[in-house]
């Protein structure tokens, strides 16, 4: 499928449906990407994006997990928070970016804050739902073994809810990666999103397509890798 798309792309530029100065061929883009990867500076850009992603993800994941726990333990907030949190999904978070940029400067902080919010929501929702849907039989088992509250949580609830938490985490990774790249594209001083914007503005289509191919490849690799991990996990936990 992807090879097919690359071939179509190459064909379009070969028959010059679109001017090659605007749309270089797939081959040209891949060549440029290889050259950039050898050149080394692209690794710095990738590092900047990955660094932001990693920080945003860990903050969002931790906060989401804790809030998810709270939403499960305290039904008073659980039911009421879910619709509000899911409305956050619908919010164009990027609208807050200019304010954060002015407050914290063009740095990692604004990107990390919004990326963390994007990661936080799915984790909180998935954790609370996963814990709430643990089967009654399992809870009874815990009661029969006279587990303490702590043991019940660690040995029964968390393993039972793990598939949901993993699913939420996958969404979190996807969303915060999407936001990190998009915010870098709006305004940043480095990073993959910034490079795509920069090469677009300065009309360097070969490099622009090279960066686009790179971002798409990273996203797809992340997706299929975690698909694999998730399938392994679900087989393990049955």
């Amino acid at each position, binding site marked *: 499928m992807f090879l097919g798309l690359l071939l179509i792309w190459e064909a379009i530029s070969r028959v010059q449906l679109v001017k090659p100065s605007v749309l270089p061929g797939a081959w040209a883009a891949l060549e440029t990407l290889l050259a950039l990867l050898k050149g080394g500076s692209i690794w710095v850009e990738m590092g900047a994006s990955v660094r932001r992603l990693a920080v945003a993800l860990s903050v969002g994941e931790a906060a989401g997990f804790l809030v998810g726990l709270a939403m499960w333990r305290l*039904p008073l907030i659980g039911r009421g928070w879910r619709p509000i949190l899911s*409305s956050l999904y*619908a919010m164009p978070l*990027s609208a807050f970016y*200019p*304010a954060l940029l002015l407050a914290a400067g063009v740095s990692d902080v604004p990107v990390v804050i919004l990326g963390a919010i994007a990661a936080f929501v799915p984790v909180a929702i998935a954790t609370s739902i996963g814990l709430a849907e643990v089967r009654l039989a399992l809870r009874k088992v815990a009661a029969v073994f006279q587990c303490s509250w702590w043991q019940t949580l660690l040995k029964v609830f968390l393993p039972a809810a793990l598939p949901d938490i993993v699913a939420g985490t996958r969404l979190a990774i996807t969303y915060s990666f999407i936001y990190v790249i998009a915010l870098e594209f709006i305004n940043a001083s480095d990073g993959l999103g910034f490079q795509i914007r920069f090469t*677009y503005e300065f009309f360097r289509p070969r490099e622009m397509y090279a960066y686009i191919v790179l971002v798409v490849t990273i*996203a797809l690799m992340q997706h299929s890798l975690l698909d694999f991990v998730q399938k392994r996990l679900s087989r393990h936990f049955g």
Partner: protein
Amino acid sequence: MQATLTRARARARGVRWKSSGLLGALALLVVLMVVWLWTSTSALVASPWDAVQALGQRIRVGSLWPPLLWTLQATFLGFAIAASIGVAVGVMLGVSARARRALAPVLVSFGSVPKIVFYPICLTLLKVGMSSEIAFVAIGAFVPVFIYCFEAIRGIPAVYYKLSRVYRLSPAQAAAKVYLPAIAPGAVVALRLGLSLALIHAVLAEMTVARRGLGVDLVRLYGRGEVDAVWGIILALLVLAIGINLALGGVERMLRGAAGRQ
């Protein structure tokens, strides 16, 4: 006796109050409001009151409507394109097992790609303006529409197919009376997520390379230091996004309720 009844009723009401989660929701909204008020002591954030006033001002003068209409037009037209392609592909994959095996994983994995990387491509092919924004919005909204459509069709219980055969329904009748009601709740989810993503992508595009729209105003007003007006526009976007989400969420619950009762 009377007193017991009243007490029981009060307790029932208390339970309903708690289970509806309204209190918790209100508490969260209060916290968010406090955070807003607290941050608005800085010069970069307008207080809620100033934001409402600035928004009212823009509505009165009429300067809100042209960018709002532009953004809405891009959102809805982009969504319409995404929906027609998404529904067509979703139905195709829902019906044909071979197409499903070949294409579904690829299309689903496309959901993990940051769509913003395609905006420069739309821009170079279609020039800055409405058409490039619509194309980008369509790319941004496509995946959820397709996934939920496809899931909804796969989720039709096998009994329903038998049912329509037993009643000897024509394909048109079967579609109208059996299949459409069965996939309606899923379709509304697709509508909700798709429209939300369409709006998000429209604003995103406008905040980067565009000449008109709410996103353009947002960035431009910040540049001019008109903080109140900026927060007025953020407020308008909030109302728009949450309004779409809650309204369609309500429709979905209604449909699911109706499906459950039948």
